[in-house]
């Protein structure tokens, strides 16, 4: 352990106080780490990053105001060297891919955080990349699937929000026929039985978010 070196400086971003508290507790007792700041929204995370320049940022994905991926992109745009570990409850291949594309160094699931968090922080600090085993299974599972187009994702998001075709058509300024044909494509690409099923699959795979 490199006790002689300065400890790894960490920023924890999560909208839920209990999770932040847990992270703070665990990191706080590590001799080689120190929690320099916390944030509960994406916007706050960007500010805290500017102020503290942490070595590692732990970023939750589902947050109000600005979600994790957007904050991640914003920080990476400003600070190319930023090392960010994504923390999330859900394993969805689309979401994992999106996070990695946006520049995340690691993708951790919250249910295995207690085992993997410290090790991953050290690995990423040493310049490595990491993926929770469960997340890697998910990515492998759908590696060859047809991806949904952005237009289809927009429709799927509105379906999950409980909109009927007509409302979706109004909100996206397209015809109801177009909505119907997109729904058909979505069902076939996701292998879903109906709209409800499609919405559930979409949420599960992280194609859309809650």
């Amino acid at each position, binding site marked *: 352990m490199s006790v002689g070196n300065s400890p790894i400086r960490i920023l924890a971003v999560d909208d839920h106080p209990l*999770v*932040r508290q847990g992270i703070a*507790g*665990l990191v706080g007792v*590590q001799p080689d780490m120190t929690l320099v700041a916390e944030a509960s929204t994406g916007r706050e995370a960007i500010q805290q990053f500017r102020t503290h320049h942490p070595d590692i940022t732990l970023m939750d994905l589902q947050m109000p105001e600005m979600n994790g991926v957007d904050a991640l992109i914003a920080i990476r745009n400003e600070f190319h060297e930023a090392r960010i570990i994504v923390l999330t409850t859900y394993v969805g291949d689309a979401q994992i891919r999106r996070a990695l594309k946006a520049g995340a160094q690691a993708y951790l699931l919250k249910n295995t955080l*207690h*085992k993997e968090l410290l090790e991953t922080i050290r690995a990423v600090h040493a310049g490595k990349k990491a993926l929770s085993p469960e997340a890697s299974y998910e990515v492998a599972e759908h590696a060859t699937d047809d991806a949904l187009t952005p237009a289809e994702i927009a429709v799927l998001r509105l379906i999950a929000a409980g*909109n*009927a075709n007509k409302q979706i058509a109004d909100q996206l300024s397209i015809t109801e026929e177009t909505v119907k044909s997109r729904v058909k494509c979505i069902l076939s690409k996701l292998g879903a039985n109906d709209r409800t099923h499609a919405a559930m699959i979409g949420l599960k795979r992280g194609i859309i978010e*809650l």
Partner: protein
Amino acid sequence: MNVVRRSHLTIGVRLTACFLAIVVLMIAADAVAIWQLHQLAAYTEMLNTADLASSAIVRLHLDVNSFSGKVAVLTRSHDARQFVNEVASVRETFLRHLRGAELVLSSSPEIAQGGLISSTLKTLRTTLPSQIDSEIELANAGDWPAIQLRLTGQIQDLIDLSSSLVEGVEERVFQQRARINKETEQVRHRLFIVVPVAWLLTLLAAAALGWYVTRTITVPLAELASGAQALADGDFQHEVHVTGNDELGVVGRAFNHAARQLRHQFEITLDARVAERTRIARELHDTLLQGFQGLLLGFQTVFQLLPERPMEAKAKLGSAIEQAAKAITEGRDAVQGLRDSIVEGNDLAPAISTLGEELATHSNNDRPAFRVAVEGESRDLHPVLRDEIYKIAAEALRNAFQHAQARRVEVEIRYEDEQFLMRVRDDGKGIDAAVLSSLGSEGHFGLPGMRERATLMGAKLTMSSDVDAGTEVELRLPASTAYGTAPRTS
């Protein structure tokens, strides 16, 4: 599938017109046949008359002949008295037959034509009686040779005359018979063609009309039947193509309308289900999962600290316990909002009462007074409706207790004969009317959620409020919906 039936007449009118057309055709065909038969009868009548005329003339000729024979026999006997008697009876018979012949000929102008025959008859009528008179005179005078002389002279002339008359009439009758035979043959021929053709035409017309009318009914019916089947199979997208103003057109339009309604209802139900599941997932994620994830980290921390740093570990464990308690509270609140059948039995009022008391206890401010009033005799509501009503009440109560800073919160439940009515009101700070009208889209106060629930069960929800005037949420459900669907309970 794309069968478009344009029928402007109703089925009743169409069928009636069809039957009328068939009946008219049948009558026309029969009329033609009857007319032809009538002609045939007329020809037969003419033939009879001709025969009558012929036989009447022959009878006259025979009379003249028998007169001549009698005169010849009686002349030889020289018995004047017998002569007079017999010859007088011959005259009488002759005159009777002559009148008969004239009558027959007068009703048969074709034979009497030309006047030749009637003038011959006239000659006979005058000459024969005068001849007889002269003979009687000669017989009384006993001049038998004179009578003998006349027999070969004037009487022979009379025989020749009547003979020529018979010939003339026979010739006419023969011509007449030939003509009538020819015409009868033609009529018979015509009948042979007219009757089957008329029959065939009627049959064809009836078949064509029947086929057409049946098709205008069965084709749309088949389309409707397949539509009904599709609907039964759950294909709410199906529309039938039945147009026109007749009864089936009306049914078709009603069918499409019903299918659209069903589809709409189905989509609303489906979308509501998706939204509900999404909400449940979000609530679980925001409360229980996050709480457990935090706790897990806390335990991991304690795990790492032991056994070297027991005091620190103890402190961490203490805060973990506090976290667990907090997580349970959050989880319980979330579950309360999600639980499916909160209202047990038909106790809507007690359930709302219990919830209100609980909310009042946890209220941020001073505990407001809370009261549930029930008007009218409590009636059975369908469990699903009951839960929905409860959820609306819960949402309204949460607003009242958490945001309104109310001193009094009241729920009024009225089981009226024509409707079910629920009002939730508080005397809190209220919401500016202008703000209230713009709230729907922002999702504050759960108003869209309440509206959606109300719409789904066919109820009407209104929210009225103003600054410092408190807030009132009113739910009205028609009796037919509210009480009509309650399952039988013991």
